[in-house]
C-alpha cells in the first residue's frame, strides 16, 4: 500500500474539485486530487469520435467507461469506476442491477446521470448559469415548506461574481435582475448575452403580455457558460447544438479549463484511475486519511492501493459518490459512517425532475430548430411567487434542438416516413414516402418542431425524513473493485407532483393557445407517476442535489455554512450535495460559487497570515504578495492603538479626527485607521476593520497606522502606543 502526502487531498476532479484545487494551488498549498476516472485528454478528438459514431447519442456517449450498450460489457459489476447512464435506463432496465450501476429500489426511477472522468460532468452540461433567486434560500421561513439555507443570496453575491468570471458567463445584467436578484453596482458579466434563436423568438412573440398564476410570462436570455466573445483563450460559440453530449470546440466552459490552470500552478497533482474507497478517522475525530484503489483498464484488475494523507480533506464527488464513500467508511466507532452524526448523509437526494412538452408550430410557420446552442432562453418569471406555499416552482427551458430529446429526432421521423410508422406521431396515416416528397415532408416537420422543459423544484414532504435517499447496497452489490454500489430510493412528494400538474396546464396553454401549434407531448418512461388521476412522466435533469446538506443545526445537517463537516473539522464536503433545497436554477453556477467560498476557508485554515501591526512604526511588511488572481482581504482581529492623546484608543477604523496633512499616511482618513499599500511605492488605501485588497497591483502588502509619519506636525509616531492584530485572508467581500 502506497502513501501519498499533500497539504490538502481532494476527491474528484470535476467542477468543485477543480476550482478548489486551483485556488489552493494559487495560495501555494500542495494539493493532491484523486480522480476515479481517466485523465483529461490532450484534445477532445477521441471523445468526439466516440460521439460521432455512437448509434445512441446519449449524454454519456462520448465518455469512458463503456456502457451497457457496448456488447462486450457484462454489466456494472465488472467496471472499476462505473456511473449512472441513460443507457442503464433503457428497456425497463432501471431497476435491474445486473444492468444499472445504481441499485434502484424505487418506487420511482432516479433518471439523472453523471460522469466519472477528469473534468467531471461539466463535459456534458448545457452551460446554463442562472443564479438562485433570493427566496430559494429561505423556502421554509418564506413559504413554510422545505429547508432554509444557512446563507442567503447576499452572502453569495461576490462568490457568484467570481464563479461567473471563472466559467466565463455571457449575459446582460438588465436581463437577469428579476425576482429580487441584485448585482454589484456597475457589474457587468464577463461577456455580452448570447443571441436568441428563432425558436426563442416565436415564444417571445407568443407569451409577451400573457400571465399565469397572476405572474407575467417573460422570456429571458439564459446566462450561459459559453463564449459570446473570445474568452480565456477559448473560441466563440459556433452553435454546434451539442453542448450535451459534447461541445466540439470548447466554446462552452468545462472544468478541465480550471483543472489545467490548477496544474499550471505547480502545486497540484492528480492521480487518475484512483478510486477513493474509505475515509479513515483518527482518535481526535479528524480525518486521518483517504484510502484508494487504482486500476488501468476499465474492467481490468486492481493495480494498486494506497492512502492519501493530508491536513485537510475535500470530497467533491457529487451527490451520489460522496455519500457512498462516507457511508461505505463506517466503523465500529463511526457506526453510521463518516460525517454522519446527524443521520442526514445520503438523505434528501434531489433533482430537478423535468416536465417535457413538445409540439409542432402551425403549418407554414417554420422556426428552424437544430441550430444554435441547445438552449438560449427560458421563461424565468415563474420561479418564485406565493404559489410556492402550495406547489413546486419551475423554470421553463426553451430548447433549440427540435425533438431530439423527446422523440429522438431526426432519426424517428425519418424512419416513420420511410417505414410507414407513426412513432413520432407526425405520420398518423402511415404514409410511405420517398424521393423529393420525402425531402419536402421531412423539411416541413423538422423546421416546425419545438420542445420546452419545465425544471421542477423537488421538495420533500418531511425534509428531515426524506423519501429519497442513497445508501450502500443492502444486497451488497459491488463494482469491479469490490466497492459497494449506491442503492437509490426515490419518490416525488405531492408538492412536487402538483408542480407538474401546473406545468402541464401551462405547457398546453402555451403550445395550443399562444403559439397556435399542435401539442404532441406523450408519456415517455421510465419516470412515470400519477397525480390526481392524471399520468405524468419526468426526465432527469442531471442536477444531483442534497445528500449532505449544509445548515445551522448539526443535528439536522451534515456540513456548516462553510461546507465543513460538523463531525470532522478537517473535512469539507462540496458540490451540490450541500444544497438544502433545490430552487429552480441549474446548479452548476451555485456549485462553483460555493466552491470558491470553500476554497477561501481552506486557504485561510492553512495560509492566512495573522500579524501584529505596531502603531509606532511606519510601513510594515506582511509577507503577503498580492496579485490579480487571488482575491485577498485584510481583517482587524483584536487590539487597540493610539495615534494621539486627542484621538484616544481606537481599532482599525480609527477615531473621529480626520486630518488632511500631507505627511499623514492617508490624508483625510480617520486618524489611527489601518492603512495599506502594495509595494514600497504603492498608493495608500484605507483598510479600517475589513477591506478587500486591490487586485490591480502586484507586490507585497504593507500596513501602517494613519498618522503623521514624519513628525512634521508634532511627535509623529513616537508618542504612539499599542498594536492591532490583523489577519490577511483569502476571499472576497
Amino acid at each position: 500500500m502506497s502513501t501519498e502526502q499533500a497539504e490538502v487531498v481532494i476527491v474528484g476532479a470535476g467542477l468543485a474539485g477543480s476550482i478548489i484545487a486551483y485556488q489552493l494551488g494559487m495560495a501555494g498549498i500542495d494539493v493532491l486530487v484523486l480522480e476515479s476516472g481517466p485523465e483529461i485528454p490532450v484534445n477532445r478528438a477521441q471523445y468526439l469520435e466516440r460521439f460521432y459514431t455512437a448509434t445512441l447519442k446519449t449524454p454519456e456517449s462520448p465518455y469512458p467507461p463503456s456502457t451497457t450498450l457496448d456488447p462486450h460489457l457484462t454489466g456494472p459489476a465488472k467496471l472499476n469506476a462505473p456511473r449512472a447512464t441513460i443507457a442503464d435506463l433503457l428497456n425497463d432496465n432501471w431497476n435491474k442491477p445486473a444492468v444499472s450501476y445504481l441499485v434502484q429500489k424505487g418506487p420511482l426511477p432516479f433518471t439523472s446521470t453523471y460522469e466519472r472522468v477528469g473534468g467531471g460532468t461539466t463535459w456534458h452540461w448545457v452551460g446554463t448559469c442562472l443564479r438562485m433567486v433570493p427566496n430559494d434560500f429561505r423556502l421554509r421561513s418564506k413559504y413554510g415548506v422545505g429547508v432554509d439555507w444557512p446563507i442567503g443570496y447576499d452572502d453569495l453575491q461576490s462568490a457568484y461574481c467570481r464563479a461567473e468570471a471563472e466559467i466565463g458567463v455571457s449575459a446582460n445584467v438588465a436581463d437577469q435582475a428579476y425576482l429580487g436578484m441584485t448585482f454589484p453596482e456597475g457589474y457587468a458579466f464577463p461577456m455580452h448575452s448570447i443571441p436568441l434563436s428563432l425558436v426563442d423568438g416565436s415564444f417571445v412573440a407568443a407569451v409577451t403580455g400573457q400571465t399565469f398564476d397572476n405572474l407575467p410570462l417573460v422570456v429571458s436570455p439564459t446566462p450561459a457558460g459559453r463564449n459570446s466573445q473570445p474568452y480565456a483563450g477559448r473560441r466563440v460559440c459556433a452553435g454546434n447544438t451539442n453542448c450535451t453530449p459534447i461541445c466540439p470546440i470548447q466554446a462552452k466552459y468545462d472544468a478541465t479549463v480550471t483543472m489545467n490552470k490548477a496544474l499550471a500552478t505547480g502545486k497540484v497533482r492528480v492521480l487518475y484511475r484512483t478510486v477513493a474507497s474509505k475515509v479513515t478517522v483518527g482518535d481526535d475525530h479528524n480525518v486521518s486519511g483517504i484510502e484508494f484503489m487504482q486500476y488501468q483498464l476499465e474492467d481490468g484488475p486492481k493495480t494498486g492501493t494506497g492512502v492519501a494523507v493530508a491536513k485537510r480533506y475535500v470530497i467533491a464527488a457529487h451527490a451520489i459518490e460522496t455519500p457512498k464513500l462516507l457511508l461505505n467508511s463506517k466503523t465500529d466507532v463511526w457506526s453510521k459512517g463518516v460525517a454522519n452524526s446527524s443521520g442526514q448523509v445520503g438523505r434528501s437526494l434531489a433533482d430537478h425532475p423535468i416536465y417535457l412538452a413538445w409540439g409542432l408550430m402551425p403549418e407554414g410557420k417554420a422556426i428552424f430548430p437544430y441550430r444554435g446552442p441547445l438552449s438560449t432562453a427560458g421563461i424565468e418569471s415563474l420561479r418564485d411567487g406565493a404559489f410556492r406555499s402550495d406547489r413546486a416552482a419551475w423554470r421553463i427551458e426553451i430548447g433549440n434542438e427540435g425533438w431530439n430529446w423527446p422523440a429522438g429526432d431526426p432519426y424517428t421521423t425519418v424512419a416513420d416516413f420511410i417505414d410507414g410508422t407513426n412513432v413520432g406521431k407526425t405520420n398518423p396515416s402511415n404514409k410511405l414516402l420517398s424521393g423529393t416528397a420525402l425531402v419536402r415532408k421531412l423539411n416541413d416537420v423538422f423546421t416546425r418542431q419545438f420542445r420546452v422543459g419545465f425544471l421542477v423544484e423537488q421538495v420533500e414532504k418531511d425534509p428531515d425524513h426524506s423519501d429519497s435517499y442513497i445508501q450502500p447496497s443492502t444486497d451488497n452489490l459491488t463494482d469491479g473493485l469490490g466497492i459497494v454500489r449506491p442503492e437509490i430510493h426515490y419518490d416525488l412528494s405531492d408538492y412536487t407532483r402538483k408542480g407538474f400538474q401546473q406545468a402541464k396546464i401551462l405547457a398546453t396553454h402555451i403550445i395550443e393557445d399562444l403559439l397556435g401549434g399542435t401539442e404532441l407531448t406523450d408519456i415517455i418512461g421510465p419516470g412515470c407517476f400519477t397525480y390526481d388521476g392524471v399520468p405524468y412522466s419526468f426526465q432527469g435533469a442531471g442536477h444531483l442535489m442534497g445528500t449532505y446538506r449544509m445548515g445551522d443545526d448539526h443535528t439536522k445537517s451534515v456540513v456548516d455554512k462553510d461546507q465543513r463537516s460538523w463531525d470532522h473539522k478537517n473535512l469539507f464536503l462540496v458540490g451540490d450535495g450541500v444544497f438544502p433545497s433545490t430552487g429552480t436554477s441549474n446548479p452548476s453556477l451555485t456549485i462553483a460559487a460555493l466552491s470558491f467560498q470553500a476554497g477561501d476557508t481552506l486557504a485561510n485554515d492553512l495560509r492566512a497570515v495573522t500579524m501584529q501591526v505596531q502603531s509606532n512604526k511606519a510601513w510594515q511588511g506582511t509577507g503577503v504578495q498580492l496579485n490579480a488572481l487571488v482575491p485577498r482581504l485584510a481583517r482587524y482581529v483584536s487590539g487597540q492603538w493610539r495615534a494621539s492623546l486627542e484621538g484616544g484608543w481606537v481599532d482599525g477604523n480609527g477615531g473621529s479626527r480626520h486630518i488632511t496633512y500631507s505627511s499623514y499616511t492617508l490624508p483625510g482618513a480617520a486618524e489611527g485607521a489601518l492603512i495599506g499599500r502594495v509595494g514600497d511605492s504603492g498608493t495608500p488605501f484605507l483598510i479600517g476593520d475589513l477591506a478587500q485588497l486591490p487586485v490591480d497591483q502586484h507586490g507585497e502588502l504593507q500596513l501602517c497606522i494613519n498618522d503623521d509619519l514624519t513628525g512634521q506636525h508634532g511627535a509623529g509616531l513616537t508618542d504612539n502606543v499599542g498594536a492591532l492584530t490583523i489577519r490577511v485572508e483569502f476571499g472576497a467581500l
Partner: protein
Amino acid sequence: MSTNLDNFVGLSSALIGISAELLAPQIDPVGLPPIFLDYVTARIPPDVLNALLTQYATLAADHVPPDQIAEQILKFNMQPTIPDTVLAARSIMKLWLLGVWYQPFDRLPFKKDDSAVVSDQAYIHSWAWKIAQAHPMGYSESFFGYWNSTPPSLEDLTGVPANGQQGALS
C-alpha cells in the same frame, strides 16, 4: 456502361430525392458512395443488391423520372411480407439520411435491427440535417449568432424546393 457504383448512387438519389451530383460530387474529398456500397454489399445478399441495382438501371434507361423510380422500387402492393429488396432499399435511404445502417434482415453475422453509424463522416454528411436546414448536432460550420437568422433555403441546401419555400434566398 454504368458501374455498380453509378447505379448505387443513382438508386440512392432516386430513393431520397437528392441529386446524384450532390451525393457523389465530381470533386469529393469525403467519398461516401464507395464506402457505403462496400458496407451495404457486405450486409445484404448479392441477389438482393443486384436486383435493386438492375431494377434501377432498367428504369433509368427508360427515362423514368427519379421519384417514380423510387416508388416502383419501394412498391410492395401491401403483401404480408415486405420483399427483401424493399427492406434493403429502405435501409439504404436511412443510411444516406442518417449515416446509420439498420440491418434490414438477418444475414449472419448481422442480425435484423442491428444498427451502427458507418463512420464519423457518414454522420457528419448525413442528409437529414440539411433537410432540416440545419447541421449535424456537434458539427457546425457556421459562425456565432447564425441561429438568430433564417437559414439558407431547402433548395440551396438540397436542390429540392420546399412546399411554400422558406429560408433566406441565396
